[in-house]
């Protein structure tokens, strides 16, 4: 047995698991997306029809798909920069030599990440209740009229973004913290001797040194945020007026509410294509930025 055979042998268990539980379902879903698998097919498999790209074509003509995509892009475009800014800000605070009780704050800020979405979303629903919620109670003291956070189509998505950012920023904060600690302190020392202000140190040392970390965090967050589902599912059920229906929520409704698995698989692959394109663009953009 040569080395290559041995290597494959060691890899075999992992490959087998990946193949059965990842590759096979993906291929099956791709096949499914080319059929009209639905309730009638569930009753009798002979009701299955091959529709080629029909599901994709029908989806591209559906206003609901485009509005769901619009809501998802809104969520990503506002949520990702906010989440990254919050993470970076928290990481800078924790990394500052002035900070006290670092382990406590590190744990406290990380805590939302490890809680379950559903349980926390229920709490947030209480906090943002129009009549009895703490958010409006606080606003009331400032003389601001109560806002229907989850019932008003204009406010529901911002509320969900705030929730998602609060829930997720701790994770990126830890990555940023590691990145900050890896920056050699002598760079700052040299800058201080040259008389650079804290802002210029941040602008010309911290940011460039963190660039690779930022790129990775951005890609991870974008791909995570494109898969928005649990937050609207628990907090608004896609409403009000479908203003928080994301692409993934649409897929869930198609697949598990109406049981149109063919069409639901097509939604999944369309989302995959979009996420793939966005990530590729981000990589290309950052590479060009790095060269110049």
């Amino acid at each position, binding site marked *: 047995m040569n080395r290559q055979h041995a290597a494959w042998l060691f890899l075999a268990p992992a490959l087998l698991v990946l193949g059965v539980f990842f590759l096979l379902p993906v291929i099956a879903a791709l096949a499914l997306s080319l059929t*009209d698998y639905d309730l*009638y097919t569930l009753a*009798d498999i002979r009701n299955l029809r091959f529709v080629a790209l029909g599901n994709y074509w029908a989806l591209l003509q559906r206003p609901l798909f485009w509005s769901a995509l619009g809501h998802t892009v809104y969520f990503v475009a506002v949520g990702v920069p906010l989440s990254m800014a919050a993470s970076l800000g928290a990481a800078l605070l924790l990394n500052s030599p002035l900070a006290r009780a670092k382990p406590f704050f590190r744990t406290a800020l990380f805590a939302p990440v490890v809680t379950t979405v559903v349980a926390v979303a229920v709490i947030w629903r209480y906090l943002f209740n129009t009549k009895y919620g703490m958010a409006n109670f606080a606003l009331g003291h400032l003389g601001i009229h109560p806002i229907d956070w989850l*019932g*008003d189509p204009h406010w529901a998505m911002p509320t969900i973004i705030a929730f998602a950012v609060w829930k997720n920023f701790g994770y990126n904060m830890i990555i940023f913290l590691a990145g900050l600690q890896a920056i050699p302190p002598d760079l700052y020392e040299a800058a201080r001797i040259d008389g650079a202000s804290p802002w210029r140190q941040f602008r010309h040392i911290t940011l460039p040194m963190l660039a690779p970390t930022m790129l990775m965090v951005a890609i991870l967050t974008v791909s995570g945020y494109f898969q928005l589902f649990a937050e609207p599912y628990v907090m608004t059920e896609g409403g009000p*007026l479908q203003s928080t229906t994301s692409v993934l929520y649409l897929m869930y409704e198609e697949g598990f509410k109406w049981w149109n698995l063919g069409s639901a698989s097509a939604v999944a692959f369309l989302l995959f294509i979009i996420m793939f394109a966005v990530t590729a663009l981000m990589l290309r953009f950052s590479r060009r930025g790095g060269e110049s």
Partner: protein
Amino acid sequence: MKHAGRSHRSLRAPSMRRSLVLAGVLLCAALSSACGRTPAAEQPLTFWTFGREGEAIVKLLPDFERAHPDIHVKVQQLPLTAAHQKLLTAFAGGSTPDMTQLGNTWLPEMVALHALQPLQARVDRSTVIEPDDYFASIWATNVIDGTLYGVPWYVDTRLLFYRKDLLKSAGFDAPPRDWAEWRRMLAALSDLQRHTYGVLLPTNEYEQLMSLALQQPDPLLRDGGRYGNFRSAGFKRALAFYVDTFRLHEAPAITNVEAGNPWLEFGRGVYAFYLSGPWNIGEFRSRLSAAQQDDWATAPLPGPEGPGAAVAGGSSLVIFRNSPHQQAAWTLIEYLSQPAVQQRFYDLLGDMPPRRASWTGGALRDDPKARAFRDQLERVKPTPPVPEWERIANEMQLVAAQAIAGQLTIDQAATEIDRRTDLILEKRRWVLDHPQPSAEGRR
């Protein structure tokens, strides 16, 4: 068992072979008698309920289990929002319960899946369940293509809750009987300046428009549920009446989310009419002050010409085809169909019984607020029995909301609903035109 075999051999010492046979017979007897008992003890009758019915049913079950000690019922309560997908997933995974509560708009779907057991033979033999005693349209929602699949458990329809005092001060002594009269009252009771409206019709609920549409002679789908029939004169008339109510500012164009607390607003006189279902009798009793209890009443839904129809909603009890406990499930259905039990069910929950006998006694007989429902139930009409109906109704309402917002005319809206409906029904047409050799053979 080994012990038993030996004792037999020592008894008369017959041939080895005979004693083995005897031992085998004994073993089988012992096992089968055990098997005969264990299903009751270890494999209870599983019964799925959705929403609040589950809480009430557990209070009715102790009496049932005392009368039938061999049946142990395991009630599993599912939240209503998850019920539909849970049923389909259970069917796909082969893990359906023995029996379930099933909304009668979901029944055609389960029948399309061949998931339910036909019940006509059992009803014919039953001494408890008399089909003639049930409200005819409610019973009919359980018959798909001539086969009976469920027994109505409770009924639901939509009618008018109205403020007697407000109507009286506007000069009307009785609730409206037809649309023209209703329109006059709506006009008299709406005031844009004072922010009062004749009626609340949340723009994201399809039941109200559907109730008006069902009052028309034209069916909502045509050709055996193959195409939408929303361009019919009848549906357009219903849609026009519905949309006009908003255009004339007799109803606010808001969703039920924005409406917030309709009971309180109804009590304050913001709305004089409220088009809703039986559960709101209880809501109004508990949410309005004692002094206001005489100010509100219920009335049958007015039709285009005289008292009209309304939707035949509600839930039925069904048995799944692959359940091993068919007889036990039927026994429970019979128990829950007794008028006395249905009256208790009403007391516990306010769910209205589907048989006339249950209305002749108990709290229902003398309740003036329930009387309009009793009257209305004789005139209810079922929704089209196609699995896609709920989806079609959703689309109908989305388009109607656009018409309310002024984006579409009545004709355009009707055409658009038909277009969307025909798209949804495409697969159904194909399946109906390509009949498969009976699905029974598949199993």
